[in-house]
């Protein structure tokens, strides 16, 4: 159980990293290892030979542009923040730093965690929420290891 829980946490950690910011050279190096390529292929994710063979600096530049276009703008983009998307009965949604942002921030901070000042997103950024679940899974694994359930 212990191992499985911490491993589930790793999946959330991985996804959090994907959404948190542009791919860095270190991260790209890890993603391009044969082991990870195998895992992704098993999941049906084929990134194409190009991804594994192109010069890293070129690829990083291209991925950075794509990340910006997807999550930051300009033009049509997908805001990675909960308060923009989640419909609330009280109508307080569809905007940045909305009611859900406050709720998420309060909830996460109530557990003893804090936001890193280097992080530029809002508190309800999907990366923050995924990372929060990662930390919950890790805490659960620790409690199980300590026989403290």
């Amino acid at each position, binding site marked *: 159980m212990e191992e*499985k829980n911490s491993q589930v946490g*790793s999946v959330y950690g991985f996804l959090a990293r994907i959404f948190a910011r542009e791919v860095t050279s270190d991260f790209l190096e890890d993603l391009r290892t044969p082991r990870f390529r195998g895992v992704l292929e098993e999941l049906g994710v084929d990134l194409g030979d190009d991804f594994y063979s192109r010069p890293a600096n070129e690829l990083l530049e291209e991925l950075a542009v794509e990340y910006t276009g997807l999550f930051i703008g300009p033009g049509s983009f997908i805001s990675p923040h909960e308060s923009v998307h989640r419909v609330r009965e009280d109508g307080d949604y569809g905007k940045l730093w909305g009611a859900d942002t406050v709720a998420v921030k309060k909830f996460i901070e109530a557990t003893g965690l804090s936001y890193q000042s280097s992080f530029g997103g809002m508190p309800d950024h999907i990366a923050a929420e995924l990372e929060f679940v990662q930390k919950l899974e890790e805490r659960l694994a620790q409690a199980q290891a300590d026989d403290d359930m």
Partner: protein
Amino acid sequence: MKKLSRRSVLKLAAASSVLIGAGKGITSNVLAGSIELADGGRDFSPVTGKERKGVPTICFNCVTRDPKIAYVEDGRIVKIEGQPNSIRSLGKICAKGQAGVNQVYFPDRILYPLKRVGKRGDGKYKRISWDEALTDLAARMKKLRDDGHPEKFMYHYGRAKGSSSKLPKTVFMGTYGSKTISGHTSICEGGKWTAQELTWGKHYDNWDFDNTDYVLNFGSGVLEAHTNHIPTSQRLIKAKVARNVPLITFDVRLSYTAAKSTKWEPVRPGTDLAVILAMCNVIMQENLYKRDAFTFIRATENVNVPVDEKISALKKHLAQYTPEWAEKISGVAATNIAKYAREFAKAKAAVVISYRGLIAHYNGTDGERAAQMLAMITGNIDNPGGRCPGVAPSWKYPKGPKVKPKAKKLKITNGTISALPTHGECQSVLKMIKDGSHGRPDIYFWYCYNPVYVNGECQENIDVLSDEKLMPFTVTSNIVYDESSRLADLILPDTTYLERWDWDGNVSPNQVAEYELRQPAVEPLGECRNFSDILCDLANRMDMPLGFNTMEEFVQKSCEKTPTLKDLPGGAFEYMKKHGVYHDPKAKPAYFRHKKEIKAADLQKESVIFDEATGVYWNWKKSGAKDEAEAKKHGYHKMHYSYKGYVGQKIGDKVYKGFKPDKVNKTGYFELYSALLKDKEFAPLPSWKPIPEHEGLAKNQLILTTYKVPVQIHSRSTHCKWLTEMFHDNPAWINSKTAASLGIKDGEMIKLTSKIGEVSIKAYVNEMIVPGAIAISFHLGRTESGRYASGKKSIMASDNDPDLKLKWWDTYGVLPNWLIANAPDPISGQHRFMDEVVTISKA
């Protein structure tokens, strides 16, 4: 994308773990720090996500009174949790505490003042206004007082503690002028208290499980139902699990506590005393006692004898109680008795614990005195890890008018048989009223108490309370229409503990006092009013103002008067409202208090005199003596209240604080030898006393034992649906050998007959009870208290609880009190809950 399989997700997880583990790829991006588990103290609605209002308060479902937090949503209490800042409970509460929500909202609750209109007991009532109710009651009380007979107003309380004890009993009754007051301690633990008062002075003991290395348990269900349950039980479990501390439980039945013990020693009912005496004997004969402890022990008539003489006197007295002798009486193997005695004496710190299994017997006071002896001779008194006099908060409170009338009293609260009923004999009150030789109250007012149901001899209780000649006017303040409320002429709807104010605080398990505040989590339902608030109102109506008009005001003034609290930041009352609990962070656990020497200046104060016979220094002015000459003539031992003036005990050439008396004129020694008992013609040293009714029983005669379960309170919880859903039937436990010899099968209906009454009950045949005994729990067999408790709708009940449709049980159990005589332990007056002999037959 392919459908995700469990295997492929795990592969991804493993690969991701590698990235995290390498520390270069996936590091924390957003969040810093780690998740800290909060101790509690905040709560959120799972539906709206909104934070709920948390009101710090104190439980009152049992006398433990755990600090807790009531969470309120839209004006309704939705949940109760423990108070994480309490040093007593450490944030934990039990099932009963959580079910406090049900106390407020059960559908059969009384919500309006009711006045009887039919024959008493017919259940015909009229709703009246508070003004009409209190005008009537005040006029009746005023007349009694103005006619010179305030004692004909009797106040009888059940569970009343902290300010809800002091305001009614001391301030209101003192100002009114009646001392016709009875509590309920003798049906609980009165014998234990008397025994402790006779030995070390204080009435309540704490068991220092945090520091102990060995536990001997005589008849306490500490893990399931104790007067300090959650604070002590969690520490005992911790000692056992974390430090492997042995716990040996002597009990008639395999209680939950016995089941969790290192060893369950089945013992025949009423024979624990023999086992303890034999253990003390082993310890004395094998010289395993702590010699130092004898400095503070009294073991002989003469208080001035040297230690060696005390030791030899005790050895001589105990020599008759061999383990082999005790085995014949108790059924516990002699080898085990000797083994436990040695282990107990040799442990670095050991604690002997005890409750009703030991004390609710004919020989209960001596049982508890013997337990005290076992602790003291091994040096396990008021030491880390031993048995310590309880430490509780010291509240100051407004006492009411300075000039009070000299109170009068009807002598109906102590029975007629018991020698030293220091906590009354409540089970005899209705019998005394029936007898009439000592007068009868014109008004009988009971509060948080159910005299018909909780005492023995239920039928006689009903007969007396129903008789308008014996009981001209009956009043109760209650939340529930129970077996006694139905015999009240006036029913005043009380608030639950979650709707009222109190200062409070029970004994601390760690020897550091904790101050606790109860405050309303919600407004009272309907027209309910707090009992103490209506006493303030009654006092004003009788032109005897108390100096405050509500319990809230009384509590506020008490906070401001109490030295430990008065300088708290923001003001004592505001601090306590915000935090609920307070303890002095600099306070050190109190141990070895008897070894403190008294300053010479304190002995030279005016009116402090020395009593040669006992070696006690005492202030005669506090003893009730007219003058010093009278005090000296009678001496410390014989003046009525000389214990109130106790200053110190001379031992050798020093004067010590010693074991200060509280209710009786004992010396400052730890009195194994009690001159007070000798005066009353009882054995001065703890001695074996067989229970007369248990001698020579026929094959079909069994000894009835009673017990409590973890999810019900003695008599105040069956209307709580969450609790009664868990426990609503109580078949009688019988040992399989006993059952076989009588031809009784498991599940069969049996008839039990005592000299008092008869009940039919289902047999539960098992191996978890000693042969020759039969066990029936308390709590059940309700004939009132609403639909969850009895299946019967109370008068003026509502149907506003959707769970009524989900109630699935239709068994309500049996009450053993119909069989049990209201008989006292001849020393303390303790109700003999565990002694009744019943004849068994098939129903």
